């Protein structure tokens, strides 16, 4: 079943058009990756799906319902959660409170407790620092917190905008493992990553975004194998 469908969406910042007629779909249970250079419009896409940016034209459907004009917070209730670019943790709240914010819309107490366990076992640093104020954490620690917070929401569709940014190598591996893992547990993931190698190899499908438009799409493996993609996004060698 198609979980998310973006069709022919355009988005403007003032007079600038950042997305022009973008269409993509995410099927239930998939990991879909969005790849593109700086400024291609990846973050814009993510924010549009979350409802932070209004579309100028086009439509977005989620589970078959049109959510184009749905308020952002109601999209969260429907199960769309994002770990935004640049972490965006609540700087004045403690680690614990930040995680609490992740389950703002949830009511299933027992499951929440379980999720705490899981997040803490993924990122022991967060457990050590439960009472530290979020804003004083190091960059990578904040990234862990942002991811943990998104996981706490147990979304149907998880949007990850550059989740590996700022993480040390051993955590990067872990992040990708987690993505696969939660995906296997039933969460659909839309992933933006600069670490295209990893992202593509973990993704069922991928889209290449350039200048606000989709220029290529295919399975992760296909794109990985494509020399032009390799040249542009995977670096030489």
């Amino acid at each position, binding site marked *: 079943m198609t979980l998310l469908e973006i069709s022919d969406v355009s988005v403007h910042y003032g007079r600038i058009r950042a997305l022009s007629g973008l269409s993509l779909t995410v099927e239930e249970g998939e990991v879909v990756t969005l790849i593109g250079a700086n400024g291609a419009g990846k973050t814009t896409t993510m924010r549009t799906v*979350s*409802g*932070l940016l209004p579309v100028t034209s086009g439509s977005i459907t989620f589970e078959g319902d049109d959510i184009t004009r749905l*308020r*952002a*917070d*109601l999209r*969260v*209730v429907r199960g769309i*959660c*994002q770990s*935004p670019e640049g972490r*965006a*943790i*609540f*700087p*004045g*709240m403690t680690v614990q*409170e930040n995680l*609490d*914010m*992740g389950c*703002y*819309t949830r009511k299933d107490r027992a499951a929440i407790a379980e999720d705490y366990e899981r997040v803490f076992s993924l990122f022991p640093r967060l457990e050590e620092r439960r009472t530290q*104020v979020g*804003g*004083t954490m190091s960059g990578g620690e904040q990234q862990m917190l942002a991811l943990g*917070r998104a996981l706490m*929401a147990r979304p149907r569709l998880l949007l990850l905008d550059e989740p590996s940014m700022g993480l040390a190598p051993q955590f990067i591996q872990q992040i990708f493992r987690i993505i696969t893992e939660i995906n296997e547990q039933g969460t659909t993931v839309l992933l933006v990553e600069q670490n295209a190698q990893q992202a593509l190899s973990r993704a069922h499908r991928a889209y290449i975004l350039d200048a606000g438009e989709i220029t290529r799409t295919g399975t992760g493996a296909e794109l990985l194998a494509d020399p032009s993609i390799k040249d542009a996004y995977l670096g030489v060698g």
Partner: protein
Amino acid sequence: MIGNLPTVLAQGGVDWISFDIGRLVDQFWYNTVNGLAYGSIYSLVAVGYTLVYGVLKLINFAHSEVFIVGAFGAYFTFQFLGYESGGIAQAPLVETIVNLILALAVAMICSGLVALTLERVAYRPLRRKKAPRLVFLITAVGASFAIQQAIMLWRNPNPELAIQLIAPRPLFEVFGVSVTNIQLTVFLAALVLLLIADSFINRTRLGRGIRAVAQDPDTATLMGVNKERVIMLTFIIGGLLAGAAALFYIMQIPQGVVYNGGFLLGIKAFTAAVLGGIGNLRGALLGGFLLGVFENYGQSLLGGQWRDVVAFVVLIVILMFRPTGILGESLGKARV
């Protein structure tokens, strides 16, 4: 001649300011009690400033009018209940209490409604248009002007006649100072209201939503927080508390329900909020009490005309040492 400057200043030095330490010591406890009672009003109003500030980063200049409308609300409730302006009522205790609670409810509702209307009319349209922060300040000022003037045109520029529901009566003494029934009621009621507000903000889910919006509205939305509702809520809470403050105000100072009567009080309350650390509810509480008390000390030490100066000097001195207020988050947000 400029040559006279020393003389002029010297004359000043001797004349215009003098430190009466004896009086400060004599009236210390009296001032403390009095200051706390006054401070409760500052605190209640300060919470409104601090909450709105926290969420919108807006100095809600019109909050003083939210307050004064509550005062009018309470005043007219008294009138409606048949109290004669002028006299001191001598109703039986139970009746008085019921009436007070009634007036409290009306005052809170009036203020709450005004706060909510303000939000809707003056601020929300701006938010929709993503106006810069300072612009809100100007609509706030505009709203403040408009409400004041509307009241003035309706009532006239003179203060309403005093109505006193309960006569001040000493209840007991602490440190040789009698505490009146009014002071005690006001202090306790304010404290209770503030504690309720505090636990609402810090303990409940909605409260957490408020704090999240305060720190990062977009991300809060990404967590499923309904930003508009949160903002509305803060205005309502602020308004309700200002309404309560308004009733307490006319209980303590029956004279003075007048169209611009909120202005100075508003500034003081805002000062209190900053003193405590703006955006921090407990800070507002602490700041209010401190300001109330220190003003009184300063008044004893230097004389009544220096009261307001003392308030601001206290503020400046404290901010010198704690640039984000007493309970303000120090640098928490400003990691480089």
